[in-house]
């Protein structure tokens, strides 16, 4: 089955309507627009290249983090636009508030050949795949299932008070998982969702990057 990947911006807009908290962000077509958006959001910001079908941004060096002022934003924007590949002329800039947090989760949706739609929760960030500390539940899932997913993580203690930060709001994590489950039931064209990282800031959560794959 052919699929396509929504842009990061569109992915998060969709997820936002299902209760996944997403980072404050806006699109910009050029350096001037990027600088304007950044000033409105407030520094520091992150700037990324954004287009439908554009994945593996970190591997391709298409992400600029922690930009402290307007000159840095302009330089990054020019740099990123120059890195657009031949098929990526439509790619634009995505300017985001920098989310700060020591803890990162990953959440997602997948269609399994045997069991169908599943929700995932795991320890996120750049080591997500190496650690493989993830748990799955079939859709539909109950709030109790969502809470049990957190307990099943190998590193579930990461959700407890951690290095001076409060415990993660378990209700907020459950809301994300239940939102994803609802999305998978209402949007049958969605093949997979990947929210990584879902950054823990204080006791709350914010999705900083996300991709939604849909049937083409």
């Amino acid at each position: 089955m052919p699929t396509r990947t929504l842009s990061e911006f569109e992915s998060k807009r969709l997820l936002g309507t299902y209760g996944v908290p997403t980072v404050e962000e806006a699109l910009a077509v050029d350096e001037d627009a990027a600088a304007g958006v950044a000033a409105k959001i407030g520094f520091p910001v992150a700037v990324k290249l954004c287009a439908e079908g554009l994945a593996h941004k970190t591997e391709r060096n298409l992400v600029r983090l922690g930009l402290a002022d307007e000159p840095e934003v302009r330089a990054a924007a020019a740099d990123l636009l120059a890195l657009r590949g031949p098929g990526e002329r439509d790619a634009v800039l995505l300017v985001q508030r920098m989310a700060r947090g020591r803890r990162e989760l990953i959440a997602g949706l997948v269609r399994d050949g045997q069991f169908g739609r599943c929700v995932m929760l795991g320890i996120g960030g750049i080591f997500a795949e190496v650690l493989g500390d993830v748990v799955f539940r079939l859709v539909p899932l109950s709030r109790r299932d969502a809470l049990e997913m957190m307990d099943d993580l190998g590193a579930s203690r990461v959700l407890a008070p951690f290095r001076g930060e409060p415990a993660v709001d378990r209700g907020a994590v459950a809301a994300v998982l239940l939102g994803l489950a609802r999305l998978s039931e209402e949007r049958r064209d969605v093949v997979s969702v990947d929210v990584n990282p879902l950054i823990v800031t204080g006791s709350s959560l914010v999705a900083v990057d996300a991709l939604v794959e849909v049937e083409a």
Partner: protein
Amino acid sequence: MTTVERFQPLFQPRGVVISGVSTHPGKWGFLFLHHILRFGYEGRIFALNREGAEVLGRRTYRSIDDVPAAEADLLIVCTPTGINADLLRRAAARGVRAAFVAAAGYGEAGDDGKELERELVEVANGAGMLLAGPNGQGLISTPAHLCAQMVAPYPPPGRISLASQSGNLVSSFGNYAAMAGVGVSRAISCGNSAQLGVDDYLDYFLDDPETSVAFAYLEGVRDGRRFFDCASRFTARKPLVVLKGGATALGQAAASSHTGSLASDDRIFDGVCRQAGITRCETLEESYEAAATFATQPLPRGRRVVVFTAAGGWGVLCADACVRAGLEVVPLPEDLRRSIDALLPSRWSRANPVDLAGGETRDTIPTVLDLLAAHESVDAVLYLGIGIQSANAALLKTGPYYPDHGLDRIVDFHERQDRRYAEAAHAASEKHGKPVLCASELVYTDRTGTNPGPQTIGKIGRITYPSAHRAVRALTHLVRYAAWRRAREL
């Protein structure tokens, strides 16, 4: 028709027909007949042999058409593939309502075999017949004294029922049951699952009054959602232990997202187990011990454990294992400490693990077992080291000085004590409705099998865990299942 009635021809047949019964004792048909006879099946038995030759001193029938009508419910098929669809048709005409097809050469053997298998299913469905197999090793039903299989063992009767996608695993499970003593009710090797699969057998085990816990060995699940629903129905009423082979990473490489690459079959299956309250095990011995524990111990109300030992390092290791498994080695309540203080010299541990440090007298162990199991802060007791007194007594008993010098009396005393301890552990468990698990390596290091500790536990109908770790593992499965039930108000 209820599920129990539907499966009665397979697991409680009034009579059995076996096709392909050779005079050669190496052939499957012969072995089926032999094992069915040997283990005392009480229904009528009709063996089919092409020449009508006598087998095991019994007359045989040349054709299914010669078998009296409405006398047999079950047909066991050991004849070659080519004739079996016709055999089923004729059997149905004689009133047979279920077939176990042991014969191989079907779906597992290429396209021709698949076609033959489809034909079998068609005939069975058309005749309203249950079809188990083909390519299965057999079935066991101890309430019917029925050992309809071509292999060993015939396990002791009990309340565990199993369905396995590998016949050999039925044998292995049966071997553990035969050794440990907690037995089997129904067991079936699913073979190719052409018509009936693990899901169907589980539905039967769920309603079967002779089953209190089920075990399934899986290699693949044909319809994941159906399995999930079936398992969830099951666990709402009875514990289900699952061992899964062949956890592959198929399709992982093709996945484009992180979520996709992390979604291995095995991780998803693990999630399915947690969600459906399935007790998933990693090995067969763990599966057996989990199932045997579910079958013989009450479910704990929580995860607070007391480790009780007559001596030393066992308790420390066991406490470590409990903590790693997520059990709580509960701080010893003050009132319990005072009660035990009154029974023992002060060198006992005065903490959990409760280590008597050899200070016990005649009645201490039974008394302490009861005190521990009775306490409201304790959900389960792990009792270590049963049988050590008798092991020492065995040295005296088999040495050159026995029975003189008072050795006979002390040997008697030690053996009697271990029997009492086994009985006390069971009594405390029954009286207070809490699991009390006894662990001692003697259950398998003592090759004579005569140690009165484990022997008495076996007679009572429970198992002695071969190590503290295995007892902890089994108890953890009970704790988890109980928590799953509580969370769902079941």
